[in-house]
């Protein structure tokens, strides 16, 4: 027994070394285009972790994570735009000139400060999520009503950002790849490499953070909310508080994710707040395995990678595949790939094919029928 434990510890250590080596080496091995894609998918893994926290562990299916994702992206883009606007006439970003805006809108001002921006990237989406969540959870609106309301909220934010040219460049979005950071072009290969490392580091940190949450007592309350909320309420917990907090945390994670995605894709636009994108986030988690944090990361990276590969080869077929994935994962694989592997999935499959021995539920019953069973 002790041997296996030690063996597992060594194995984990080895795995970590391999992962770290892969992350450090990736920018030198992969071409810039692929590296950039990988970096983007890794940043999407962070928002997937948030979705897993609220859906996989707490049972709240949010279809509006795009709001927080885009808010984080806008925060980063506003800072970058301001940072490189000082040489321009008026000292304000170029696009304002198109709409005849002379003065910076008031809410842009704080984004001159890098410190404020770094905080705002996760705090602003978090606070918005907390407010939205509190208003909804306070009334015990849940289940599908919650999903619909988050989707409606998403549409509202989309309409708002899409329509306000004079405030945030409306449907065109804010470009970041030609802006300056630390005297370097954000879109340049060296900066992209740094962003890749930053993303990888933040994915690991976000994973550790999420793991700490779900393994703590807080996490047990979340699972309690998912499995039987009324019972939890009767035992004296206040589900509203817990739900609001975890929704805010997921919002913050989405914000970080959005900021990283923005600097690596070169633009943030209301397209981040479209309805399909937010539902896609759910399917990453569902395929990877809800309720398993690693599953969320693997699902996000793997599905997006598959998406880009399939779309390059057969553009029209991705929608069919994606639609099929939604149906398949819900009907046949509700625990996702990782959940299936962790439960007795593979053995069940093998025994059904007649390769492995069928799993017996109560082995003692079959080995020794006379013995009394204590369940």
């Amino acid at each position, binding site marked *: 027994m002790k041997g296996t434990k030690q063996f597992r510890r060594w194995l984990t250590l080895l795995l970590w070394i391999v992962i770290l080596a892969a992350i450090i080496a990736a920018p030198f091995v992969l071409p810039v285009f692929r590296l950039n894609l990988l970096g983007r998918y890794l940043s999407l893994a962070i928002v997937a972790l948030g979705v897993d926290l609220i859906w996989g562990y707490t*049972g709240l*299916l949010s279809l509006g994570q795009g709001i927080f994702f885009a808010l984080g992206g806008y925060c980063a883009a506003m800072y970058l735009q301001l940072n490189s606007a000082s040489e321009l006439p008026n000292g304000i970003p170029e696009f304002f000139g198109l709409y005849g805006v002379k003065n910076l809108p008031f809410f842009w001002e704080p984004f001159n400060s890098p410190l404020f921006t770094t905080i705002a990237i996760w705090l602003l989406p978090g606070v918005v999520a907390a407010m939205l969540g509190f*208003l*909804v959870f*306070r*009334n*015990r*609106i849940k*289940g*599908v*009503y919650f*999903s*619909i*309301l988050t*989707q*409606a*909220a998403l*549409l*509202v934010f989309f*309409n*708002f950002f*899409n*329509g306000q040219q004079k405030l945030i460049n409306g449907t065109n979005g804010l470009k970041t790849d030609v802006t300056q950071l630390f005297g370097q072009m954000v879109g340049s290969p060296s900066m992209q490499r740094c962003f890749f490392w930053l993303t990888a580091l933040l994915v690991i940190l976000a994973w550790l953070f999420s793991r700490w949450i779900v393994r703590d007592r807080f996490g047990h309350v979340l699972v309690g909310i998912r499995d039987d*909320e*009324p019972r939890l309420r009767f035992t004296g917990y206040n589900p509203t508080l817990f739900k609001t907090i975890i929704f805010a945390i997921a919002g913050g994670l989405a914000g970080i994710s959005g900021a990283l995605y923005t600097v690596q894709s070169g633009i943030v636009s209301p397209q981040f707040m479209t*309805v*399909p994108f937010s*539902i896609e986030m*759910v*399917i990453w988690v*569902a395929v990877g395995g809800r309720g398993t944090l690693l599953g969320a990361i693997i699902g996000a990276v793997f599905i997006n990678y598959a998406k880009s590969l399939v779309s390059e080869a057969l553009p*029209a077929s991705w*929608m*069919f595949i*994606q*639609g*099929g*994935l*939604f*149906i398949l*994962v*819900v*009907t046949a694989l*509700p625990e996702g790939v990782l959940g299936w592997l962790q439960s007795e999935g593979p053995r069940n499959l093998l025994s059904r094919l007649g390769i492995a021995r069928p799993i017996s539920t109560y082995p003692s019953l079959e080995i020794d029928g006379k013995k009394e069973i204590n369940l």
Partner: protein
Amino acid sequence: MELILECLFNGVAIGSVLLVAALGLAIVFGLMGVINLAHGELMMLGAYSTYVTQLIFKLPALKPFYNAYVIVALVVAFIVSAVVGILLERSVIRRLYGSPLETLLATWGVSLILQQFVRSVPLAYGAGLVLSLLVGFISPFLLPQKLLEGSRGRLVRAASWAFSALVGVLGAGGLGSLVSRLGRASARNVDVTAPSWMRGGIDLWGVTFPIPRLVIIVITFIAVLGITWFLNRSVWGMRIRAVTQNRSMSDCLGISTERVDVLTFGIGSGLAGVAGVAVSLLGSVGPNVGASYIVGCFMVVVLGGVGNLLGTVLASFSIGIMTDLIGAGRLLSIWPDMPTPLASAVDFFATTSMARVLVFALIVVFLQFRPAGLFPQKGRMVEA
């Protein structure tokens, strides 16, 4: 006076599109607790059915009846959407009763597939597929019951499906060769041209009422009346209401809940098709036409309260009137000497998209006071 009349008309017009679209959703969601995100795509199918019907009526043989194609399209759209809806219920949703979130995701997958289907498959093939499904669904009821029993029944069923497949292939081929435009796949939006009697408007009391809008209001009115009658007066409507109230008790009393599910879902989907006809009269038809309505429909259902048609009607009209009032900036023309700060606020929201923003905010505020909508379901269901 004219202003109020115009405002009211526009609001009712916007509201009735919402209502006819939300009606099917309200039935499926309210009665079965199923979130159907593919509802918008069923509307889209209805809109495409209108387009196909219109093209068929342009054929020389049917040209004299061209003006009546809208009425035929209503029936065709209802049947097409109902058939696809029933297929959806039988194949996917049936496995997921009791887990609404899973249903939501699965129906989203269906909606993606349907959208891509109309993009990359010629409409004639789609029509053939629906035709064969229709024949396949109906044929067991037409054959003598004796034939369907026992081991021979399986064979008969298989034969009937083979026959319906043949009908579908023939239908698709015939349609594709008769109307060449249906034989090719196209991702482009198409336009449904209204028949001559539907163009223009009627002038009354100094206000112009566009006829397509009036037609939509009439369609909505008939749909609501028909559904109300069906649910409250017919035998199957009574069964549907019984299953809604207590599924297991209805089952014990001998109501086939499975049939009720199919029927309810079929009617809900068929109403989506009718809504599709209405939508096709307003603008061009594309694979995404349904997606733009679906969130609005859900807001209607949430605001109206579940399982209550009156709530749905009131909710959609109030949303329609609010949207028009805010979006067209009518408050300013009703009350011209408004204080400046208020006027600028009204002006800020006076676009269609910003009106949506404000209307949603108002709905969320409203739900703070009435979390279960306008007319909450009464009963002892603590955690419905």
